[in-house]
């Protein structure tokens, strides 16, 4: 079975490379878009108690929505293809990044902020040189969760014509061709594990030296 899958892969290399490329492109764009929206939004609301609570509640509801349901709901509105899938995946990536950005900034101890203010820092300096560096590991943990979720969600994009490695899986299931399905399922599993590992490493690397766990 694995040999057959390998044979299929080597004879359809161009097709596989395209699907793999689409999968990575759609995942990376969705994650980048979500980060560009959710991180500034999180920073903006974090220090306003009411707004922060509202944002966290909205994110919690967003987090509970089934990925496939979100993809399916986008389809009747935006149609099929790369863009609708990108929109749906971006929506799915927003909640963990938003929640963690807010939690990261709120988690910065008041004493540290007070000390920074006492040293004469402006609110902007406090944000850029105190709050954000200390919140970075938590924000990155959110990005990591979102990244794995997006790589996994991008498999489902195949159902709405978004392309990617899910195409092999859906074709394999439809024709009950196990080797074909493995050509999609094994690489996407490895991609997801690699994403988790990579973001885990970045998370440790970006933790300010004084905060690293021994």
């Amino acid at each position: 079975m694995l040999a057959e899958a390998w044979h299929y892969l080597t004879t359809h290399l161009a097709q596989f490379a395209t699907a793999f490329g689409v999968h990575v492109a759609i995942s990376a764009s969705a994650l980048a878009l979500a980060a560009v929206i959710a991180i500034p939004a999180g920073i903006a609301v974090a220090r306003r108690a009411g707004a922060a609570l509202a944002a966290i509640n909205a994110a919690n509801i967003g987090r509970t929505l089934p990925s496939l349901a979100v993809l399916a709901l986008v389809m009747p509105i935006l149609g099929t293809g790369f863009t609708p899938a990108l929109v749906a995946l971006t929506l799915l990536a927003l909640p963990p990044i938003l929640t963690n950005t807010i939690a990261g900034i709120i988690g910065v101890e008041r004493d540290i902020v007070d000390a920074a203010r006492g040293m004469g820092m402006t609110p902007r300096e406090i944000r850029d040189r105190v709050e954000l560096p200390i919140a970075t590991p938590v924000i990155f943990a959110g990005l990591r969760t979102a990244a794995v979720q997006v790589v996994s969600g991008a498999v489902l994009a195949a159902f709405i014509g978004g392309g990617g490695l899910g195409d092999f899986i859906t074709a394999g299931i439809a024709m009950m061709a196990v080797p074909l399905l493995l050509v999609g399922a094994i690489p996407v599993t490895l991609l997801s594990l690699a994403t988790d590992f990579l973001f885990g490493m970045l998370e440790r690397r970006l933790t300010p030296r004084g905060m690293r766990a021994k």
Partner: protein
Amino acid sequence: MSWFLRNWDQVAIALWEHVTISLTALSIAFVLSLAIGIVAARNERFYAAALAVAGFLYTIPTLAFLALLIPVVGLGRTNAIIAMVAFSLLILIRNVAIGIRNVPAEVVDAARGMGMSAAQILSRVELPLALPIIVAGLRVAAVTVISVTVVAAYVNAGGLGTLIFNGIAGDHPPKIWAGALAACALAVSVDLALSAVERSLRRARA
């Protein structure tokens, strides 16, 4: 909307299937995690190993997991339930173990001093005190399982995903709307209900 009104029975049947599949998977996962979590709470190495395995399983994309099980168990409900149990283990084991560990040592000492056996301490002191954290885990696991069940319709497990897939295949948006909105509503209401349970448990213990 008119499609929904004419076919509400179809939606109700799919919803019922969805709930039963999710509940079956959640119950199996809970029993397994309770056993693993109790051992893990007292053994650091076992805890690390259990979380590493569960974390690995959790990272596998849903549809890939369902697909990888096809050569082993074929299509159908068994396939879906195995995948859902695998996805719930991480959060459930972690919360059971952390919940038990968070019980203050002096409370356990007091129970021992009263002459309770290890089994009595577990069932009458540790587990009741860990309950809010365990319920918090169940809440996340329940939402995950409901979400996986939607996808599992593709491997013929039934449930609300069936409406979505039929709707996509037949280019029939009302069916997609009905399936997707019902799935979202189910996930959100289960989340809200279990968070209410969690809050009242915390209040009762405060």
